[in-house]
């Protein structure tokens, strides 16, 4: 395109990039998938889940925030990096309460799909933290169950930047940091089922539940029944 473009490599594949693009943005355009959970198209980068950790010039960085640079050598699909990612995904499972068989996000859930992609077997190495967070069912159309929250902040950024509402926000510090709503409960906020923050796909797991929509998709037709997470990006390259 313009003369300012440059190229760098990801696992030996040459990738074109523009100044200001992150490693992940350039990779997406080139049809190379870098695993991610907190990054979401159309939203600001958070850089919090760290599942997108890659080696760039030998240093570990988060691909969703690190700018691409000319001639940068990036490693992505290596056993070592996938092991780190598996650890992170396991941490997220063990931090919350996840029971996939009875969860209505099952099959559409990015955390679950990432676990499959990374070959996560029985998660027994880490202790379970078993938080007990109350379900907020106050809103007529929406329920919020943060027991499965992975602190990706996608609902927060979507509500703030897309909906211009600020329904959600983080409160607390450290292991007590969690997603909260901008009032005593969800019904007292101006959240609406039309919000981008509530739309299917914004929450990667099963926290933001659209009432009366539960289990709408039959098994076999759910998002990740059709292919592993990231296949949409990887298909671009195969075409």
């Amino acid at each position, binding site marked *: 395109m313009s003369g300012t473009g440059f190229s760098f490599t990801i696992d030996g594949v040459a990738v074109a990039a523009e100044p200001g693009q992150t490693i992940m943005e350039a990779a997406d355009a080139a049809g190379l998938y870098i695993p991610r959970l907190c990054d979401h198209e159309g939203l600001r*980068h958070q*850089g*919090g*889940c*760290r*599942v997108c*950790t890659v080696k760039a010039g030998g240093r*570990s960085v*988060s691909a969703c*925030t*690190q*700018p691409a640079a000319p001639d940068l050598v990036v490693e992505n699909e290596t056993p070592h990096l996938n*092991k*780190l990612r598996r*650890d*992170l995904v396991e*941490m*997220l499972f*063990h*931090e919350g309460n996840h029971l996939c068989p009875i969860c209505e996000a099952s099959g559409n859930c990015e955390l679950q799909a990432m676990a499959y992609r990374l070959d996560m077997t029985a998660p027994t*190495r*880490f*202790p379970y*933290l078993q938080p007990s967070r109350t379900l907020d069912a106050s809103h007529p159309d929406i329920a919020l169950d943060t027991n499965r929250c*992975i*602190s990706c902040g996608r609902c927060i950024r979507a509500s703030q930047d897309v909906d211009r509402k*600020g329904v*959600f*926000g*983080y*409160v*607390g*510090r*450290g*292991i*007590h*940091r969690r997603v*909260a*709503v*901008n*009032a*005593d409960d969800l019904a007292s906020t101006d959240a609406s089922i039309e919000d981008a923050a509530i739309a299917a796909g914004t929450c990667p797991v099963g926290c933001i539940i659209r009432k009366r929509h539960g289990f709408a998709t039959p098994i076999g037709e759910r998002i990740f029944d059709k292919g592993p997470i990231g296949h949409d990006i990887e298909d671009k390259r195969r075409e």
Partner: protein
Amino acid sequence: MDVDPSSERNDSDEPTLRIAAICAAYGNDRHRMLDILRDVQEGFRWVSPRSLETVAACTGLSRVQVEGVASFYSFLSLTPKGRITIRLCDDIVDRFAGLAAVAAAFEAELGIRMGETSADGSFSLDYTPCIGMCDQAPAAMINDVVVTRLTPERAASIGSALRAGRLPLEIAVPGHAGLSPAERAAAMVENNIRHAGPVLLGPVPSDAGLRQALELTPTAIIDAIEASGLRGCGGAGFSTGRKWRAAASEPAERRFVFCNADEGEPGTFKDRVLLTERADLMIEGMTIAARAVGAREGLIYLRGEYAYLRDHLEAVLESRRAGGRLGRRIHGIEGFDFDVRLQLGAGAYVCGEEGALISSCEGLPGEPKTRPPYPVNRGYLGFPTLVNNVETFCHAARILGRGADWFRAMGTDRSHGTKLFSVSGDCLNPGVYELAYGLTLAELLTLVGGEDAAAVQVGGPSGTMVDRANFHRRLSFDDLATGGAIIVFSARRNILEIVDYYMSFFVHESCGYCTPCRVGNVFLHKAIGKFRAGLANPEDIDYLRDLSQTIIETSRCGLGMTSPNPILTTLQNFPLVYSALVKSSPDRVRASFDVQSAIEGARRIARRRSTIFDEDYT
């Protein structure tokens, strides 16, 4: 005023008006959120849901955004606190110095348990991490006042005096009314300067460095700093000259010079002494930096634990302004304007990380910022911001005054000049030592009366736990790097108890932004508990190493990248402590435990003895 200040249920809108007035005093500026909430906390003893709403309305934020800030800092509370809040330092140094008995004495005298607030709202008792008084532990904060060298008797008498209505300041500094702020600070907390070196703690002529700097071009100032070899004293050791050059060369309309006085690394208290004794020199250094990088605005980020130094620092700033050494036309030079604001923190170790410090100053939760961009390129409010440690600015002023060569000649090849060491723990002379870089740990231990040490924590929890076999190592950036903390432990101390405490510290202080540090440190802490309970298996040692590696490699900031160090460095230097506690029986029942055979295996692996463990068991 007999009304319960925590009550906001009366019909009048008085509290709302008072909170609106607090916000107005800060121009309803959302960037001053930390000041606003500190004042609300002080005025009402908590930040109530209604306060959140009022503050949000005044500053144009949402309630959950204000709650995000209020719930981040330890010294802000979303439930009512007592009019007097006593915060006892619960660091391992204080525990070894008799903390439990002191806490019990406070509990008995005030009739509440640690963590509780009395029913009439008069007292709260809390624990808090290191408050920078490690050389005079056990120590505590009573609201903003500091009391040190506590004994159960002293705690009881403090408690009864408080119950009799005496003010904390009266108790800590009898006769404080006739004292200047500087005298009051010095009377409250001992300096314990044990060794004054040539750069910082010896005699220092006033503004000699600044006057010299005014003869130079900004580039020449930076050249001098770079030539001196000065490296940052806050822990990371980055070249100060290069940092100044980066800040100076970034095109911008505004630039800032920030002094990092957050000093949160447990075991570190040298900045406390500089702030008390060398505040003028530190501000002189900031002013030189401002001249060098072209900044007109400066800020000192003072940890909330050091609030007792606030009046003193304000007085020094004011006297510099009055003397034409700060503010407009400094030293009479047209166009050389620079002023400094004091920003108090509110109990968050991570705010010492420069990006988190900037977030905090912007009125946000103290979360580190995504790097790049770096603060020297885009920092406070998006403008280039130079962040240096208190000691770094003091050194810079002296370097300008005495010349780069003078400074460069001290220390070692890659660590020039002197360094302040904060020494605490099991030694005869805890306190601050100014020494040239490059001395061995053994030499330092002789100086401080700590020859009996069995282990030394160099650099605080995020640093290295060193065993006797390594006391020949040198204190410098090439060998044992440290921001200054030296914590001495005798053979009586239990290494795993220390590690356990340090991991709980990191769990408490993680900001929670990223997965590995937020969750991984909880797992590490739990695993250490398993070892201490005698429930660990041999594979758990690999688990500790493996999990630590993940946390280090994937964390977003320096806190997570160093938080496994207490475990990794003790696994390395005290392997027997771990291996002797694991049991190999697969059925998890310890039928007969033979510590010597357990040690023998580990001895073979480690190929050396561990003093600490063998002394206890052989």
